[in-house]
């Protein structure tokens, strides 16, 4: 089954994402900020990255930019979790190499539907 790296500094969001994905049978690894995520992504290959944007230590966009630069993550789907008010963040994220985004707030079904689009 596909393995997913879920990155968010809010533990309730992380729990929710991870619980939902695990329930759907994915393997989920969690990270609380971009730096931690980067370390984990380098140590193990993931099939999909889901990351929050605003995080301490390293934000999601910087994280995506770094990870996209890694040879084995050139084509890996990377999704950002953004809010509707952050239209410019989407563009910034895309420029950094993000595949797409999931708009907050979202519910578990929306999350799974989006995931199914990029993982098959």
């Amino acid at each position: 089954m596909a393995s997913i790296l879920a990155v968010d500094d809010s533990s309730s969001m992380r729990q929710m994402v991870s619980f939902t994905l695990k329930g759907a049978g994915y393997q989920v690894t969690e990270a609380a900020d971009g730096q931690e995520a980067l370390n984990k992504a380098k140590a193990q290959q993931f099939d999909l990255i889901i990351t929050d944007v605003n995080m301490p230590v390293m934000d999601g966009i910087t994280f995506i930019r770094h990870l996209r630069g890694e040879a084995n993550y050139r084509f890996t789907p990377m999704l950002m979790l953004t809010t509707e008010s952050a239209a410019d963040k989407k563009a910034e994220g895309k420029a950094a190499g993000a595949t797409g985004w999931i708009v907050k707030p979202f519910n578990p079904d929306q999350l799974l539907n989006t995931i199914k689009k990029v993982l098959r």
Partner: protein
Amino acid sequence: MSIDLAQFHETFFEESFEGLDVMESGLLELEQGEVDLENINTIFRSAHSIKGGSGTFGFTAVADFTHDMETLLDQMRNGDRQVTADIVNVLLGCVDTLRSMLTAIKDKEDVDVTAVAEMSAKLQAILNGEVVHDGAPGEQVNDTVVTSKEQSTGDGWNICFTPFQDIMKTGNDTVRLIRELRELAQESEVEAITDNLPALEEIDPEGSYISWNIRLYGQDINEEEIREVFAWVDDECELEIKPLVVGAAYTGPERRDDSRRQEDAPDRRSTDRRSKASESSSIRVNISKVDELINMVGELVITQSMLSQFGDDEFNEQHLERLKDGLSQLESHTRELQESVMRIRMMPISFAFQRFPRLVHDLSTQFGKKIELVMSGENTELDKTVLEKIGDPLVHLVRNSLDHGIESPESRINAGKSETGVIELKAYHQGGNIVIEIRDDGAGLNKEKILTKARDNNLIGNDERLSDEQIYDLIFRPGFSTADVISDVSGRGVGMDVVRRNIRELGGAVDVASSPGEGSVFTIRLPLTLAILDGQLVGIGDETYILPVISIVESLQVREENINAVAGNAEVYRLREEYIPIVRLYQIFDIQPASEKLSDGLLVVVEAEGKKIAIFVDDLLGQQQVVIKSLETNFRKVEGVSGATILGNGTVSLIIDIAGLIELYQNDIAGLAPSVKGAA
């Protein structure tokens, strides 16, 4: 798939309250003139997380409210809005509002809608003030939707999709997009256009060169659904979507509206709202602590299996040595396990400290004083129960230092001190105790004033002579207050005695030291935990009592020549240059001792709150850790006794409350011979 979101609520609340604390302390720092971008970022992040979480978990009101805060913070972050004291104050108010909203929701009570609306209005006023930049990002109008409401026009759609060469470099994939499109329709055709394909040697193997013509056939596909498929790549391709009806007008500009994706969210998320929520309060534990615990349990299991071997075959003398080993291992593991479990309940004192920056900020404005708060040792850990109960006494002491301790800026300057007063909060471990100091660099306690006040209130006699410590200690007496003007902060005369009582209930002690013109220090000593105590077992007659080891100064054999009888039946013992009152415990508890003759027994010198007494006991029996059982819950409160425990042999033993005992003794003696106090 339906997932009950209520299971994440508790975590959400917990982290939201933490986030609010972070915002609060960040805002307070902002106010001191440090416009530090990282700080604003941190505040923004907290607001953002609360907004994201509350939206996801169905607390729409919170999400809406936070949205405006976030907008304002975003403007501050981008430098579009100057940070002013006004804005900081409004944001602080918002933090309070948000906190009460979340508390209400958490407790399943009604949110105070008027208060929220008021605060909201203030926020709006700022936002609508001079907007430097393109206004509130959240208020983008969906004007793009107007023209493109082209519903299914009959036969379907023709989509011309030309991805840019680099589309795959963001992890997007033409195949995925086409697959998604085809899922929308009952029938579809896909045509590849290879016109732009370069010569073979120029092809970037990771590039995308093919354009696609996709025809979707179906009655009920709408344009928005199609656009949504391309939402992530709209800047990485050329896209043309036309209805498949012959002669139908091509509808309008290719504008898009990214925000439509969450349009249907609000309806769905309200469903989880009323589901069960657990009332249990939780505590966050560092994983390393849990690992330690698991490790300990592992050790325990090994020891247990080692011991259980003895039951397998006949027991002989050779086994005895190993049995002893096993038992001593069991003992050390049990102790370590116990310590590990206790450590789980330990939390850093920063949880109690973090409200002080705000408190000091608010109060210093109120009093017109300039005050700097310095905190150290915030990571010192103590038991969660103690932590929860120490909050109020601390607040009281800090308020007191602020109100009575620190002088007004003018009188500080006159006294040759810096205009800004300093209040220091400090926590550290000392022995088995945690010590909290509240130090101010104010005027110090006014001895004369205290004495006059105490005499006026008949707390002491007119001709009584007291040492400095004893004078300072008077402020902890019930019904004592030196404030000339009674303010709403302190000075109501309820206070210090309540502080002392509360701290005593935690098994702790508080005292004060002061020097005129330089300030005062209040020192609180607390046990690390309320559950377990290192006890000294002492025997009196047939009874066994327990004295807390930390209170014991020394134990000694009685030399007759050092015993002095003072007025009435009070006795003191001369220990080096000190006279210490002797307390015959058997008298106080009315039991039969082995001997009433002092030289037959021992004196245990104990200390609490700076006072010493010598407790007369028959014998010292040994030290052990005892589990404290509350007498109040199981029986009733007994003066001079802080609790009870069950000893190894099954008997119940009372744990002496030293501070309480001293008080009991003093009251006892005061009735008989008031003058003894001076001798102590």
